[in-house]
């Protein structure tokens, strides 16, 4: 139930009861606002500087993802999944591919699991760098933003060397990934790692003991654990309030059960805790990538299943079965055809549990592809989160929510 301000802060009315008859002020933090990451409208009812009530309106980026992929084939939906959480597109790709593979009953090769783990963690690093950098920029710490953009650039250059694109990569396919990692990946990763660690050190010295940053982040935007559970929030937002659940550790997929990493949690539930959780998660992601690179076996990267993967070119040109297989996988009306069935599979996205509910009707197109967006329940709690806060506090709170329009509105 949405909370009223007198439920959240019972002494609010008494605190400001100075005998004056005040009319509230309604202002609009509109769909085009510099500090709103993407487009969302908030109508605020203010009493002086304090937010007494608010209404959040989303949907300004509703690009009809779910209806569109019903018209496309299973592999053609992958570029659309890139644009869901567009700061960590690899996680969306791999999550979707995992869901379709569950529906088909296909097991990917072991090397693919490790590659997927590495690329997901690389994407997660980019997501957290962007979130913290943009949040710091909105508080005035422009230098921190520029340092983190430099670190993100280096990770994007590495992603470009692997997948061919910086942001919208479409690297996953049903049954594996498009191509193997380049031969010099380890050296390039060592360079990226040094950049990320150096920049995190610099930003740490700038922000961690910065009086202004601490004052603006500590105690601001507190979400108690009970409300986090009622709102169904997951991910770093929930872990900063004490809800210790991470799909990578608790329901492992890909190669997460073979690497050792910690899941940082805090119990304060304010902006400062979220900042700390995200910084620590970057360090843990670096750790995961190092271990995965060391443990990765050799092998193929796409499963050699005729229902799913294109056969090798040499075979296509030399024998008739491979040619027919190639033909059947590409022509409209044929293609990858899972049996009648449904599946719900989830991965740990940058913001929490990214779930995919797929329904297949036996044809080459999805019947229904539902994405459970991790920032949707978090955004539904923003109205309550900013109750009682001052207008200037809305900006850091919103920054720590890490709303991604592509995922929220789909």
């Amino acid at each position, binding site marked *: 139930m949405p909370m009223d301000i007198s439920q959240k802060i019972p002494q609010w009315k008494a605190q400001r009861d100075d005998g004056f008859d005040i009319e509230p002020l309604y202002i609009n933090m509109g769909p085009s606002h510099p500090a709103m990451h993407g487009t969302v409208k908030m109508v605020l009812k203010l009493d002086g500087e304090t937010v007494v009530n608010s209404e959040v309106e989303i949907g300004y980026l509703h690009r009809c993802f779910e209806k569109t992929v019903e018209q496309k084939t299973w592999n053609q939906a992958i570029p659309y999944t890139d644009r869901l959480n567009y700061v960590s597109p690899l996680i969306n790709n791999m999550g979707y591919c995992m869901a379709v593979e569950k529906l088909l009953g296909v097991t990917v090769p072991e090397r693919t699991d490790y590659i997927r783990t590495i690329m997901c963690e690389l994407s997660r690093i980019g997501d957290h760098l*962007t979130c913290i950098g943009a949040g710091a920029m909105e508080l005035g710490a422009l230098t921190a933003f520029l340092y983190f953009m430099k670190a993100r650039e280096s990770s994007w250059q590495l992603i470009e060397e692997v997948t061919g694109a910086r942001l919208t990569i479409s690297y996953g396919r049903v049954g594996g990934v498009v191509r193997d990692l380049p031969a010099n990946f380890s050296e390039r990763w060592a360079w990226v790692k040094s950049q990320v660690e150096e920049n995190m050190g610099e930003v740490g010295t700038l922000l961690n003991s910065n009086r202004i940053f601490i004052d603006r982040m500590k105690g601001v935007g507190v979400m108690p654990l009970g409300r986090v559970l009622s709102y169904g929030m997951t991910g770093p937002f929930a872990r900063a309030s004490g809800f210790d659940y991470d799909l990578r550790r608790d329901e492992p997929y890909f190669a997460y059960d073979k690497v050792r990493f910690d899941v940082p949690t805090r119990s304060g539930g304010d902006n400062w805790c979220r900042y700390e959780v995200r910084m620590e998660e970057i360090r843990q992601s670096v750790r995961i990538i190092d271990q995965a690179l060391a443990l990765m076996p050799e092998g193929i990267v796409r499963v050699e299943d005729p229902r799913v993967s294109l056969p090798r070119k040499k075979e296509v040109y030399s024998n008739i079965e491979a040619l027919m297989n190639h033909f059947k996988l590409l022509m409209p009306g044929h293609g990858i055809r899972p049996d009648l069935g449904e599946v719900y599979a989830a991965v740990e996205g940058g913001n929490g549990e990214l779930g995919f509910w797929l329904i297949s009707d036996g044809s080459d197109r999805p019947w229904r592809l539902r994405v459970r967006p991790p920032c949707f329940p978090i955004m539904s709690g923003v109205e309550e989160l900013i109750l009682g806060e001052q207008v200037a506090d809305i900006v850091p709170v919103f920054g720590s929510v890490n709303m991604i329009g592509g995922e929220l509105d789909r």
Partner: protein
Amino acid sequence: MAGDPLQEVVLTTKLDKVLGWARKYSLFQYPFVTACCGMEFMSTSASHYDTDRFGAAFPRFSPRQADLLMVVGTITHKQAPILKRVYDQMCEPKWVVAFGVCATSGGFYQNYGSVPGIDCFLPVDMYIPGCPPRPETVIDALLKLQERIQNQRHAVL
């Protein structure tokens, strides 16, 4: 226009050139950021690819103070009236850049929610293709736009 001797008066052409030079090197952008292209926009403005060296980095978040409307990302039918209003509030001279294929033509979002290109309701000066466009493409477009601003007529007199 051709054959009108008044058009070739030295004063107005020189004034055009001076105003063109001044306006092209002091573009104040209004980044109307909606979607994934915003990430590449952030990268282009950051220190690696830097648009500040072209005089075009400093964003003004009020339409009254901006002269370059950069529409970054997909525009949906719900967002279109707001974009139109922001465009209407900007003062002349103003230029519009469609950043990314979603703003140019709708991209691969051809459905009931997305507007198939902002030129359905706004006049566009520069279309930047790419999904998202590489920062080098954006800088190329910015330089072409600056060339265009230099060479266009600036009506003052």
